[in-house]
């Protein structure tokens, strides 16, 4: 799908990336920030998976009954690793947020900045 | 001819090692003195052992490590470096004796003597630096090592002085670094063993930038006006520090650097064509006069000495900037002449403060009866500065005048005459007070600055021997340098070799 010469699948990824980025920058709530980070991450994954597509292709599993063309397996492997990395980062971020809340009683950046 | 020899490295290295040992032995007085003297003595011996070779025209070189191709840390004992090293090594021995007497009972003596030894080691390193990088290396090390000495008293005043001192010298160091870097970029070498490193077709603007950067960089330590602000303030340091460092090592290093820049980085010939030297000479002439005028107004003794130093240092710069053989000779000889005379004065002032607690000119009435030997030494030094024949200062002025005439700059002769009068104007009142006025009745107000430091011995004759002996020896040197100017084998002959070989000028004396 293209529009004005732009690949809409890719543009969708850009839109998602920017929604995530907006959440990360503009939202004051730390959990919202981390959610935004996750949205950004998935948008990049979507971009990578999309780049590995092939027209009329199927999953890269070579068994009886499957035939080329196959989608490229490398982007999938990359994204699989990326997902694990993302969940690891999220887990650490959330643990830190819990710490912050236990100490300051708030997870709003606006209020954290005012505290000593 | 150049000969590879370990001695140029050995001289600073020996004293570095001893300095480290001074720190290591801690509070043990005997061992501290032992290592300090060993360092001073060993260094003097090493330097002296090279003297015959230097007079015969041999240059000892040793490479330490190569930085990159073309730039290495290397030491090279040419005649000019030898001259400077001889002066500083000799004075170190004397100052060490004096300092032991002066600092008796003071606090933090480990730190004091340790850094003191470090400073003098670096001074020799500077004297022997084969290239600008090595020079800069030791130059900045000297800055760092003097800082603990300046703030030794740890009073707010001393700390402030230390900060001002660092600000001036580190900014200067920055300019020196930039200048060195530009030199390497333009010339491809940093060596100080040639008489000019730049190719004839180097752009003049770039050369001007290099000249300004290097002269600014080294001129700060040479206290050329308007970069002199740190020197009077740094006088809060203990007197041996003021004496050795702020009359000899640190400031001379600056002047030494400027002469190296003039004769070894640019070379007399090229500088003549470029025309950078006259502005420097003018600045030096201005500093000579302005320093003296300011000195007259100082009542604090050490500050008066400081302004006198500022004025006297510019003799060296002026002599070097004339670009004539006799001017250069005067510049080199003044390194020694000013050093011995000024250190004598500092020693005396220190002894007076230590014995009587007097630190201001106006308090000195009748001091000559209390301390006749010291004041006699002081008189010798003062006469030398005024430039009476038979004293060291005279030879400088004589050759400087001749050098100025060689350069057709007759008005510098006028500057020098004026300076002599000004010198008389601020030294003679002290002598007058000391010899011809009766001592005031002691009042409590008399002992201000160093309070009770030496007030414990009101009836002792003169002062302790460790203070007096260096004073007398230095004064004797001042006379010796004055009367033996034409005798072969004496410092003058080294200076003559230096003018010829280190500066690449024709022989100044037949």
């Amino acid at each position, binding site marked *: 799908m293209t529009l004005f010469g732009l690949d809409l699948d890719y543009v969708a990824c850009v839109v998602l990336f920017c929604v995530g980025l907006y959440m990360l920058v503009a939202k004051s709530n730390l959990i919202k920030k981390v959610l935004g*980070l996750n949205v950004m991450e998935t948008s990049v994954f979507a971009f990578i998976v999309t780049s590995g597509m092939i027209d009329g292709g199927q999953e890269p599993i070579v068994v009886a009954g499957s035939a080329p063309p196959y989608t490229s397996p490398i982007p999938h492997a990359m994204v699989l690793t990326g997902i694990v990395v993302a969940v*690891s980062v999220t887990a650490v971020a959330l643990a830190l947020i819990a710490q912050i809340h236990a100490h300051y009683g708030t997870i709003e950046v606006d209020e954290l900045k005012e505290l000593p | 001819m150049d000969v590879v020899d370990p001695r140029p490295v050995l001289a600073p290295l020996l004293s570095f090692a001893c300095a480290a040992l001074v720190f290591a032995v801690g509070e043990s007085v005997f061992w501290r003195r032992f290592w300090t003297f060993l360092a001073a003595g060993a260094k003097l011996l090493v330097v002296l052992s090279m003297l015959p070779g230097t007079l015969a025209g041999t240059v000892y070189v040793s490479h330490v*490590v190569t930085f990159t191709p073309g730039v290495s840390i290397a030491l090279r004992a040419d005649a000019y470096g030898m001259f400077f090293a001889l002066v500083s090594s000799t004075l170190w021995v004397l100052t060490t004796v004096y300092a032991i007497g002066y600092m008796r009972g003071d606090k933090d003596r480990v730190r004091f003597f340790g850094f003191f030894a470090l400073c003098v080691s670096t001074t020799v390193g500077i004297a022997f630096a084969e290239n600008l990088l090595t020079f800069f290396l030791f130059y900045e090390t000297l800055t760092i090592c003097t800082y603990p000495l300046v703030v030794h008293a*740890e009073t707010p005043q001393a700390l402030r002085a230390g900060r001002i001192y660092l600000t001036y010298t580190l900014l200067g160091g920055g300019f020196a670094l*930039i200048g060195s870097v*530009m030199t390497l970029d333009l010339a491809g070498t940093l060596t100080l063993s040639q008489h000019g490193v730049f190719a004839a077709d180097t752009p003049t603007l770039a050369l001007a930038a290099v000249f300004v950067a290097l002269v600014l960089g080294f001129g700060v330590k040479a206290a050329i006006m308007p970069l002199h602000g740190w020197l009077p303030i740094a006088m809060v340091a203990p007197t041996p520090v003021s004496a050795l460092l702020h009359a000899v090592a640190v400031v001379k290093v600056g002047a030494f650097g400027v002469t190296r820049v003039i004769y070894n980085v640019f070379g007399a010939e090229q500088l003549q064509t470029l025309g950078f030297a006259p502005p420097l000479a003018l600045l030096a002439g201005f500093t000579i006069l302005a320093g003296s005028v300011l000195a007259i107004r100082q009542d604090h003794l050490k500050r008066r000495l400081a302004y006198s130093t500022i004025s006297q240092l510019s003799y060296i710069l002026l002599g070097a900037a004339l670009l004539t053989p006799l001017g250069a000779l005067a510049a080199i000889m003044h390194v020694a002449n000013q050093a011995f005379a000024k250190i004598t004065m500092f020693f005396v002032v220190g002894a007076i403060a230590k014995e009587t607690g007097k630190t201001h000119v106006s308090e000195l009435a009748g001091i000559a009866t209390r301390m006749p030997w010291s004041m006699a030494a002081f008189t010798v030094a003062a006469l030398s500065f005024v430039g009476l024949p038979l004293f060291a200062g005279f030879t400088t002025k004589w050759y400087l005048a001749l050098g100025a005439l060689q350069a057709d700059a007759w008005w510098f002769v006028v500057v020098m005459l004026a300076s002599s009068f000004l010198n008389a104007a601020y030294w003679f009142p002290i002598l007058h007070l000391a010899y011809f006025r009766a001592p005031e009745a002691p009042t409590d107000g008399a002992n201000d600055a160093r309070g009770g430091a030496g007030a414990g011995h009101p009836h002792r004759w003169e002062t302790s021997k460790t203070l007096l002996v260096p004073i007398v020896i230095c004064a004797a040197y001042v006379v010796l340098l004055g009367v033996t100017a034409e005798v072969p084998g004496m410092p003058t002959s080294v200076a003559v070799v230096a003018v010829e070989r280190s500066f690449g000028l024709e022989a100044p004396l037949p």
Partner: protein
Amino acid sequence: MTTLGSTLLPWLVALPLVGAALVPIVARHDARRAGGLTFAVALATTALASILVAQLASQGPFSADLGGWTAPYGIELRFDRFAAWTMPLAALFAFVIPFSWRYLDGTLPRERWAPFYALLLLNLGGLLGFSVTGDLFNLFVTMEVVSLSSYALVAVAGRGVAAWAALKYLLLGAVSSLLVLFAVGLLFALTGSLNLADVSARLAAAEPSGAALLALASLAVAFLVKAAVFPLHVWLPDAHAIAPSPVSAVLSGLVVKVGIVGLLRVLQLAAGTGIALEPLNAVLMVLGATAIVMGAFLAIFQDDIKLMLAYSTISNIGYIVLGIGLASPFALIGAFVHVFNHALIKVTLFLAAGAIIHQTGYRTLSDLHGVARRMPQTAAAMAIGAVSIVGLPPTAGFVCKWYIALGAFEADQGGYGFALVFGALFIFVYYVRMLDAFFFRAPVRPEVAAAVEAPWSMRAPVLVLAAACLVLGVLGGIPIGFVEPAVVDLLAALGR
């Protein structure tokens, strides 16, 4: 072709990572064992690294094909001179870890010692992997190992304050990691390959496209964030100041260098692509010079010694970035040498500061008056570090400043030379205050007046490192000679 070097290379990365996995197992019953095992692993890694460096010196760069798949079909680890020059960084861990042994007493409850040491080893393994990998995606994953362990190390000892600093670090760090992943995706879509050399060659073969430019730009931005270059530095000061001192040493000395090594990779990728690097270089020069001055300027206002050290890291990263931006041979040499020299100096300073804070309980200058009277050796090490970080001779810091300044004039950018030399002096204003307070003032706090020198396991690393700062200053030619061929190669690849 397998040589000793290419056989051992993967284990260089695997050893600390596996060591990290073993730490919690070994420390199940006795937490103190964690420190011992970690030290042993760090030593073994250092030994392995020295074998590899020796191999490099005798037979030139080599690479290891993991799994036996030749590049670009598998992951390739490359050991060239740049990678080798990051090996001494690993050796610094061998100093940080013994320092931590006693430092953790009273800082961290015992049950968290094992995770702490494991994180240190993970950090080390990630750093090593990052610098030797020749594969783009592997670059991303190793970077994540480093980043994730760093975030946690910041928060490890403190409570909310530390967690907040760590989270700020995490959010910015995660975005920059994501940019790297995005760029890897772009490059893969453009070339179909993940091998660095292969991608670079294929980019060069194809005509330059906006996508390649976007990829390189996002890599550059990502690594500038990781390196905390001035306007992107906001995460650094708090994180580095609040972390426990051994961690601060690792973060400030080593982890920010991830960004620098990454920038180098960007240059290698761009080599030969026909993409003009001048805009990037111009940006790097401006950012570097700004960072030098602003880092120094901001440091002046700090009373907390660790915060001040953190700001000086920003300033020093500015040197390196400026050197890379100048892109002249001398400047690059200076920049790369400073990658290690700054690490050495900064580890010295942070460990010394850590020892002082640990022994006295105070961390601001006004409280620490006169500490040198009670802890002369540590304070002397601190003084050497301070002189070195300002770049005064004869210390390690001077060597780099000299070369970068020389490179500035070589590239006809003398103005940056001035910024470098005087920006550095700026920060000395602060250090003089520190030295005054430590050495020349009377103690105001009873704890300081009664302090004693740190135990030997803390003091020895500090003293050895301080001595190394001096030795590397005098023998500055050795690292220069080591890095020079690599810079020549890089410049040849960049067509200069």
